[in-house]
């Protein structure tokens, strides 16, 4: 096991910037996830760590040792590829055993030991029935698990997993996630995990780095990332439905600060939030514009007026889930999602009915607008 440090790493493909000035540390035995949309540079970072891609500038350290110039064979990592990359001419068994047989690791396993190791990981991931088959006779999900088994069969310094469960069906995804968690704690492995699915990242990681267009947008524990998104991008990427982002205007009346959006939505902003609101605001045409962010579970919903600061909006749509409902309101420029837990009321809201809403201002954030929040 080893700790990994990326120091101001930049990677260019010609004029195109894939990764820009990324500094990231993964402690020994830590499970670090890199989350971001397609094309954010997640896989490029993994390839840089694996030694498949070189850095344009910056440094990569394994256990304090600079490894920029080390080829993949000498880095002692293992990797599961999103595209599987199984060796087509080898049976599943040989695919999984392939890393164990590399002379470089000097494992010198006897055939029995090798069989035991392969069987162990195959049973762990539920592919022990497939060992005699060729990759071309496997489904996508099976190939993905074989690829994962090949990455987990050895004990390298660092595991690099690139979307290792993205192509599994929902049920298998969940159980494999549990297995990965078990694996990580059992072997105290250093794992760097790339995904575009925030649920996997929240469920598995000790720490998460959110990547956007090659740069790190926020880094922190899953709780930090979810509860206190640093930017509107993080808020909109993590969570389903995404964080509510409302573009509006800062208005000051009688020394009190208000946030208003559209014609019938104005709230008084709590004093301790005013500073951050002004900081995030920008001036345009003599007005102060800003963006308010709040997660759907921090908006209270009721038929009765909740407080002096609550406001009324007509119900636009309701989506029922097993243990809650998401009620959607039309705010003119964007939708406002409200999650309502189990209680009686939310189930029987009618469309267009006016409901009272109230923001829990200890979970309100103000951001500079960096993502497009047009209705989708």
């Amino acid at each position, binding site marked *: 096991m080893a700790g990994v440090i990326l120091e101001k790493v930049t990677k260019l493909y010609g004029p195109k910037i894939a990764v820009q000035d990324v500094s990231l540390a993964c402690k020994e035995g830590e499970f670090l996830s890199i989350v971001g949309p397609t094309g954010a540079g997640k896989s490029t970072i993994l390839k840089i760590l694996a030694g498949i891609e070189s850095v344009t500038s910056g440094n990569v350290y394994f256990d304090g040792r600079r490894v920029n110039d080390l080829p993949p064979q000498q880095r002692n990592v293992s990797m599961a590829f999103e595209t599987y*990359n199984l060796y087509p001419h080898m049976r599943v068994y040989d695919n999984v055993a392939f890393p164990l047989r590399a002379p470089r690791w000097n494992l010198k396993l006897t055939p029995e030991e090798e069989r035991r190791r392969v069987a162990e990981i195959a049973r762990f991931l539920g592919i022990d029935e497939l060992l005699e088959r060729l990759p071309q006779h496997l489904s996508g999900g099976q190939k993905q698990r074989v690829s994962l088994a090949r990455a987990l069969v050895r004990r390298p310094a660092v595991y690099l997993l690139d979307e290792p469960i993205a192509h599994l069906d929902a049920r298998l995804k969940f159980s494999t996630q549990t297995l990965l968690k078990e694996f990580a704690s059992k072997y105290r492995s250093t794992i760097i995990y790339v995904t575009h699915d925030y649920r996997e990242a929240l469920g598995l990681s000790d720490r998460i780095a959110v990547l956007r267009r090659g740069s790190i947008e926020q880094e922190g524990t899953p709780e930090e990332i979810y509860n206190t998104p640093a930017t509107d991008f993080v808020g909109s990427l993590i969570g389903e439905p995404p964080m509510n982002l409302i573009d509006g205007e800062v208005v000051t009346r009688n020394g009190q600060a208000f946030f208003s959006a559209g014609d019938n939505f104005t709230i008084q902003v709590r004093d301790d939030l005013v500073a951050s609101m002004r900081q995030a605001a920008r001036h345009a045409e003599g007005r102060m514009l800003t963006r308010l962010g709040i997660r759907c579970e921090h908006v209270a919903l009721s038929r009765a007026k909740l407080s002096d600061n609550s406001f009324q909006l007509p119900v636009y749509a309701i989506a029922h889930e097993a243990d809650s409902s998401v009620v959607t309101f039309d705010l003119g420029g964007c939708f406002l999602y409200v999650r309502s837990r189990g209680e009686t009321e939310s189930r029987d809201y009618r469309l267009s009915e006016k409901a009272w809403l109230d923001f829990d201002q200890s979970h309100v954030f103000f951001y500079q607008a960096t993502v497009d929040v047009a209705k989708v």
Partner: protein
Amino acid sequence: MMKRALFWAATLIVLAIVIGPLLWIYLTAFKASGDIFTTELKKLIVFAPTLDNFQRLMTDYPYWFNLGNTAIVSVVSTIFVMLVSLPAAYSFARWNTGGGHLLFVTISTRMFPGVVAALPFFIIFRTLGLLDTHVGLILLYIYFNTSFATFLLYGFFRDVPAELEQAAMIDGYGRMEIFRKVVFPLILPGLAVTTVFCLIWSWNEFFYAFLFTRLTARTVNVLISSFWGSIEVQYGPMAAGAGIAILPTLVAAWLMQRYIIRGLTFGAVKG
């Protein structure tokens, strides 16, 4: 019904075109001279078979010696061609060696008619004393086949994804081991196809063999052509000689047909 009939008619025509000449060669090879030159139609197929032509071929001409020359030249040139082409094609495919220009130059040696190079080669070979030698003919065949084999193998190597090799590097293998354990098994069908093509091409080559050999290194094709004399055409020995000479290529093509079809469509049906 009509469609079926048309299908079979077309099949028969194609078969007749392909098999007709072969059939003629093997029928003629076993005919006495009288049966060859008769105008009687039924004698085309019904005749008393004889081994006279083969006997004359073996006793009056250095047939086995010339066939041996063909074999030596084909096999040795093909071995050298593969030794050069395999690493060259891998390097072109994986590292784009020479930025595409080198590959183009390699292939361009096949873009002019063979006769263009014949005169300069002849003069050079005469100066070097390589005329009518095995080495000379082998060098010529290496020259012509290397470009062809490199180009063909280049395509097969391109079909092996670079990510597969990267996976093997991460798994801890060195370049040579990766080539041996991952790349080589995957291009094996392509390698077989290329080898067979080179062998067959050298085996069948006539023009350069005719120009550059006289006695010592004369190939079987040149011998067969000599039956077409100025006074008479000796169809019997010619057919017998050709009948034996084409056997190896027929067998090779038949044995490799599974690979050849797979090799030629390798890129098209990757899955």
